[in-house]
């Protein structure tokens, strides 16, 4: 059983024009795909055709059903109805093994790489070359050679001997692509591939996608970022609530695409007046914080946030933003430096004290740190105030007041739920986030900190949440926004601090050209590469 029992691909048709590259174009049709989870119809009779050699963008909000659809195409889920047709032949994919055998590969949003394996091991996994033996003695030389060959052929540099956990995300993504390509796939599904990349890495990825299609590969590009879709797609299918709501050409305007995606006209620009900064509210001086592994994550940050302004922190995820915010909130030990709120040192104080001194906090991991999923909307809205007037005291909760508060907030923050007694876990991501924001904005605030305020939030809710943040600013609150989405930072912030490897590389105005900010996010200042 060599090659892990994958049946040899039947190659029946080899058009002369492309045969010198050795690729077979693959035409894919999804016909009437329907998938239900209980009452929820995740995919409702979806029809999509992907022509050979095209980049087909699948555009839709989080929760629209894009990933569910692709997981069926990749054999991870089975459709309840409908069929998958490859080169006019209906196929049933019971597992990814079948999909790969039919020429379909997938790069998942969360990389499917084993961190402690080498690149070559990860790529070989599941399709190992062996020299026989009962357990299959690995042919490691050949595995290395295959990786290098594929890497060279498609112009995707990877080091076969590197450990995956040591690689930056951009390189890990290349490993994922090479992994799919070594399996001889002709259609590549890329699920939100740019979510974790810097603008430069995104550019590189788009170039790779172009060269792959030139070699006859088809690409299904799943995303919710309109700019990228317009830059690369040959054809666009928009999905909303599990249904195909339209197809579009790449020359369609961003506003039209957004309207198609959301189902109504939305404003992509954040509407705000110029800031009127007042006194300095939050001041960080020489802040040093370690991450969970004891490695320095924040390395001497000086920062100031003034009343009535939004300071945005831009940067690729994992450059210390998380630790910075956690340190300010008293969730992480401060190794050195000061954190001052209106002159009072916050370092070493309990999170409860910090919240009560007028700090609002929207954590980046909503489902872990923002809400208690099993609790109701009403309960989640008073998580910070349960032991205070009017909601309760040391011994009892005032349920009437809690209920009244919930009704008020639900209306004020447009939280779409059946009733305040619904468990928060059943709400959509956007509405969960509105619960968090409603709670945090219900106290009198001096400082409002929002980490990734719109991650996993639908476009409609994004608009609302951004509006609320600007509103809070206009009331004279100092606002700190951390986001890995450059668009969001540029749209919201009055000043942008770019964070790289635990340091603030520069503070720039939001009018700065994007390329410049992008370079800063990659650690490049003023044209000189920062070498370490």
């Amino acid at each position: 059983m060599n090659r892990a029992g994958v049946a040899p691909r039947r190659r029946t048709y080899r058009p002369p024009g492309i045969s010198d590259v050795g690729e077979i174009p693959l035409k894919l049709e999804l016909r009437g795909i329907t998938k239900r989870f209980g009452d929820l119809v995740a995919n409702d009779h979806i029809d999509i055709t992907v022509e050979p050699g095209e980049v087909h963008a699948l555009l839709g909000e989080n929760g629209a059903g894009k990933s569910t659809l692709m997981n069926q195409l990749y054999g991870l889920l089975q459709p309840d109805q409908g069929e998958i047709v490859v080169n006019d032949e209906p196929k049933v994919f019971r597992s990814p093994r079948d999909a790969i055998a039919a020429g379909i590969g997938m790069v998942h949003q969360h990389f499917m790489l084993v961190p402690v394996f080498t690149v070559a091991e990860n790529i070989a996994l599941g399709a190992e070359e062996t020299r026989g033996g009962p357990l299959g003695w690995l042919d490691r030389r050949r595995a290395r050679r295959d990786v290098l060959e594929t890497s060279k052929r498609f112009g995707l540099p990877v080091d076969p001997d590197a450990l995956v956990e040591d690689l930056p995300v951009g390189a890990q993504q290349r490993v994922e692509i090479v992994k799919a390509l070594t399996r001889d796939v002709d259609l590549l599904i890329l699920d939100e591939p740019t979510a974790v990349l810097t603008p430069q890495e995104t550019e590189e990825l788009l170039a790779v996608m172009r060269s792959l299609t030139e070699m006859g590969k088809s690409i299904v590009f799943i995303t919710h970022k309109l700019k990228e879709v317009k830059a690369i797609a040959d054809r666009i299918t928009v999905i909303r609530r599990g249904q195909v709501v339209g197809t579009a050409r790449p020359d369609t305007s961003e506003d039209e695409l957004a309207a198609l995606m959301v189902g109504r006209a939305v404003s992509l620009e954040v509407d705000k007046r110029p800031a009127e900064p007042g006194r300095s509210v939050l001041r960080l001086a020489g802040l040093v914080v370690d991450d969970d592994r004891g490695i320095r994550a924040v390395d001497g940050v000086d920062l100031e946030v003034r009343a009535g302004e939004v300071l945005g922190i831009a940067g690729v995820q994992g450059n210390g933003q998380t630790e910075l915010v956690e340190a300010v909130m008293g969730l992480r030990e401060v190794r050195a430096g000061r954190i001052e709120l209106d002159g009072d040192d916050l370092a070493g104080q309990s999170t409860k004290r910090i919240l009560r001194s007028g700090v609002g906090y929207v954590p980046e991991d909503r489902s872990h740190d923002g809400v208690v999923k099993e609790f109701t909307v009403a309960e989640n809205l008073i998580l910070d105030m349960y032991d205070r007037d009017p909601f309760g005291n040391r011994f009892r909760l005032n349920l009437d007041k809690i209920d009244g508060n919930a009704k008020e907030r639900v209306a004020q923050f447009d939280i779409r739920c059946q009733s305040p007694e619904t468990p928060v876990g059943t709400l959509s991501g956007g509405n969960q986030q509105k619960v968090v924001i409603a709670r945090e904005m219900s106290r009198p605030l001096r400082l409002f900190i929002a980490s990734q305020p719109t991650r996993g939030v639908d476009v409609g809710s994004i608009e609302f949440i951004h509006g609320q943040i600007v509103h809070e600013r206009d009331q004279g609150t100092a606002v700190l926004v951390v986001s890995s989405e450059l668009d969001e930072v540029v749209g919201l912030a009055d000043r942008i601090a770019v964070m790289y490897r635990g340091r603030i590389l520069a503070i720039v105005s939001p009018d700065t050209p994007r390329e410049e900010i992008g370079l800063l996010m990659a650690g490049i200042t003023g044209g000189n590469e920062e070498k370490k």
Partner: protein
Amino acid sequence: MSTATVEAPAEVAAPEPFWTRQRRFGVALILLGVLAAVLFGSLAPDKDARFTLTEDAQGAALSINGQFGAVLFGVLTLVAGGLLLAGLLKRWSNALLVAGIVTFVLSFLCWQVAGQFMSLQDTLGGTLDLALPLILGALAGVLGERSGVVNVAIEGQFLMGAFAGALIGTLAGSVWAGLISAAIGGVIIAAILAVLSIRYLVDQTVVGIVLNLFALGITGFLYERLMQPDAQHYNTPPQMPAWRIPGLADIPVLGPVVFDATLLLWIALILVVVIHFALNRTRWGLRTRAVGEHPTAADTVGIRVRGLRYLNVLLGGVVAGLGGAYFTLVATGSFTKNMTAGAGFIALAALIFGRYTPIGAFGAALFFGFAQKLAFYLSAINSPVPNQFLSMLPYLATIIAVAGLVGRVRAPAADGLPYVKS
């Protein structure tokens, strides 16, 4: 494409704190060294400590003056600790640590053995003998845990194996039938563990503990109802013969211990090597590790995650069952209630101490086996160290080893987490 290349991820190395693990061990070794040199040195009688090669007291021996030896080795411990503290020879810090511990033990032995003798052959033989079930138990653990299933039920598998080996061995009148039944006994516990934890997603530690109690209960019950009333028919299993390999068995010290031994010892030693290579060099091993580290990744490349976990847990059951056979078919001639007395848990400790690797687990099992053997030896020579303390020694060594020496062991990332397709 672009001029910007992003270098390795943001790992700004923190300046190393002064009190590193090495330095702390250095201080501990210095204290131990002083203790050894002063206390052991002053208590040791001024007589020769003889370490004989064979079991013959008069035979060839390495001998050293007890007092001198105790002080010498104590000083060596101190030196090893000093080097660790000073941060010299950093690349050899693990070797220094081992050297420090070994010299400390030697210093202790010089004190104890002075005026008497200790047979190296007997010590090695006893160590291997006592380590044998631990090796097999820890290997069973390696198989399960590397594929992501925590196996706390090694103790139960031992008991089932020991019981089944004794019962079927007696009934069939064949030690080989006993050995195979022991393996099946282990597999039965493994199968329950596998189904409950992989299929029904029950917490693996809880299942393991319950299985241990189950095995204790059912073997105890059957022992009292069946074996005790009629031991002749049910509890007199034949013993495994020791096979002698001519030539190799004549190697001093090692020969009589390893090459004049039971098949079970050879199985254990071969399994250590086989599992080591299989895990690191074969397709099965690569997939097993992938399933234990990142099952979703394995699933997306077409590996049957649950199937592989079942296979490995059941294989582990075979190995642990063989470990159980040691108790009734090699060590003693009959089954008694709860005869494994926690050996399964020590095997679990050996697995962790050995960092989830076959070779490491083997080393750890030898270490624990030696601690037990030492306790027996010391009580045999009427050591002044109190008897209660001696019987505590193997367990104390286990605690110190697992809590202190290993530091942070990185378990397989998905160890103990059931795999559910999303």
